[in-house]
């Protein structure tokens, strides 16, 4: 009995702590949102969360931008970059993962180890020659440096995630399907693929968010404003806008994170499932 009491008191403490911590965690994001309606005077030197005077046009004006290109363009550009990248990532990592998870071929162990090793290969050490290579190929200032490597399953993390998931599916399924006349490809598409949905979602969502938020590669590869992504557009407005319109910069920051937040809320289940059940065994 005493034990129980102790526990429930503890869990109250837990709750209080978790709530306070939760507030601290999201406070910056809430501040970001409310400040997009503030005047400059409220943004600086005021600890109030809510504006004293509301400014409503920050979103409209910020969205327009100052000139020929506004956030509408940056949004469309980002989608043009992100969507093919995500699709190619999913397709290629499913194929490769299937190869590793279900087939036995010479040098498999070695190749698998190489793949795991590339998981730890720092991007910095391949960045420069890749840049030179893409330059020679004439891919600079296009989205190809993002899309093509995705088509070739360059990210070991996603392959690994898929492999772990496919390994968790019973082999009986494949065998039964093979007996029923499926070739190895149709085994994948008809039997395994539907079952892989959670993992596919995880891969897709991770890749979406990473590409959406990517800054380093964007700043290196994309140079003309007409092709700017959200990240670059945001930095543009941070640097170029005169200090009169800070709320616009904040408003566009809010806009830029909305897709990720929405995606996260709607696909949370897959997301947490994907990372926690497949990311780590073995």
């Amino acid at each position, binding site marked *: 009995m005493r034990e129980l009491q102790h526990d429930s008191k503890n869990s109250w403490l837990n709750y209080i702590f978790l709530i306070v911590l939760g507030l601290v965690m999201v406070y910056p994001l809430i501040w970001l949102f409310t400040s997009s309606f503030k005047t400059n005077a409220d943004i600086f030197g005021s600890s109030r969360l809510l504006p004293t005077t509301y400014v409503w046009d920050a979103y409209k004006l910020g969205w327009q931008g100052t000139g020929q290109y506004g956030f509408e363009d940056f949004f469309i550009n980002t989608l043009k970059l992100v969507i093919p990248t995500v699709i190619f990532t999913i397709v290629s990592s499913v194929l490769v993962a299937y190869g590793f998870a279900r087939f036995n071929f010479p040098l498999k162990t070695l190749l698998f180890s190489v793949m795991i090793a590339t998981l730890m290969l720092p991007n910095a050490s391949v960045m420069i020659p890749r840049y030179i290579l893409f330059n020679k190929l004439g891919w600079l200032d296009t989205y190809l440096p993002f899309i093509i490597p995705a088509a070739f399953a360059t990210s070991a993390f996603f392959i690994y995630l898929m492999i772990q998931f496919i390994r968790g599916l019973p082999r009986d399924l494949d065998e039964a399907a093979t007996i029923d006349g499926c070739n190895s490809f149709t085994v994948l598409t008809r039997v395994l693929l539907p079952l892989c949905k959670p993992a596919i979602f995880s891969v897709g969502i991770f890749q979406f968010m990473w590409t959406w938020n990517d800054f380093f590669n964007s700043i290196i590869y994309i140079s003309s404003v007409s092709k700017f992504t959200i990240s670059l557009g945001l930095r543009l407005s941070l*640097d170029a806008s005169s200090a009169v319109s800070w709320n616009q910069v904040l408003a566009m920051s809010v806009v830029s994170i909305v897709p990720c937040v929405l995606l996260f809320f709607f696909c949370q289940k897959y997301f947490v499932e994907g990372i926690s059940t497949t990311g780590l065994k073995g």
Partner: protein
Amino acid sequence: MKRNKWGAMGLASLLLASLLGGCSSGKSASNTSTNAGNAANAEEKVTLRFSWWGGEDRHAATLAAIEAYKQVAPNVTIEAEYQGFDGYEQKIKTQLAGKTSADIMQLDLPWLQELTKKGDFFVDLNTQPEFDASGFDQGFLDNYGMYDGKLAAVPTGVNAYCLIINKSLADKLNVDSAAQWTWDSLLEAGKQLHAQDSSKYLLLTDHAALRQDMVTMLKQRTGKQWVQEDYTLGFTKEDAAASFDWLYQAMQAGVYQPLGESDLFFGKIDQNPKWINQEIPIAPSMSSILPSLKTVLPEGTEVITALPVIAKDAKDSGVLVRPSQLFAVSNDSAHKTEAVKFLSWFMNDPGAAALLGDVRSVPPVKASQEAAVTAGKIDAAITNAVELGLSHAGLVDNAVANNSEVQKIMDDIVQKVSYGKSNAEQAADELIASLTSKLKDLQDRE
């Protein structure tokens, strides 16, 4: 908001006189020899990319001019690529190396000096019959646009280093806005102001402006460039130590806002809340920055300019007069003729000048100056700054002194002194050691 027409008119003639006087006019290579091969069909749709950096007012004016060009050449679409200063240099260099640069680009003088050594990136405007360079002062072009006998770029405006003063605030704070400052009087006044009210500072800055101060001080002490064209130093340890000592004292005394606060606005000093909230009355800066510094202040605030600090016994005034920026046309451009045509229009057309006004300081072409003045688009304060600058102009910067790696060394040491992490002696020693090794390295790579 009064614009002084007559002052600016006077400037036009003065500008020409002093530039002609100051420069040895070299090879005048205005050749109209060949027709540039691909004379584009007038009906052909052409898209040109035009990139520049600046503040909001420059963006707005330049976009307006681009809009106006639609009337002149309906078949040409100009895509504007503009941003703040920070990161622009990397972008331009990356694009040039990757052959993805805009057709027309705004460049800073140091990069142009550096880039023309590395490769043949820019169209020789003298070979382009479509480009009208006749309105420019030949000496100004020779000094800043000519590289290896080619006219690689043209100045966008005449820019002078000056003090930009929020006069309304200065009056309120009892800061003498008419003073000709010396380093000593500046230090004294700054000390007093900050002592009276610790939220106030006399001077707005970022580390690049501090570097400029140090370089100016060295020039004034020695009468020479701080880094010479032959990769040697133009100053001694004593010179450097004295300059750093001044900086150290100025920082300790609160003449400047602490660098940690001000440097968050590096390259965009107009965003500094202390300037916007009128807690700093003076910004030592190039005259081309004035419009951005002015727009963030409340309507009716009086902003004037004055000659920058000159030491009592200066051997050279150290006053920097140079192109605001330069425009160049990319050699990789698919539509060179169209690009050159646009640039020529942008620089020479009175209508364009009337739209652009002073967003790149005073236009370098005489007719454009007059058009901008007539349109009331040139701030009298900028005119004043450029006039003062021209009449007190100091040494012309050489490419080595402007090299980005060389400047970075000065930047680093200026920061150490400003943060009080290095005293004047140490800083001087470090400056000389680092520069010597860097200059040797640069020379080796030549």
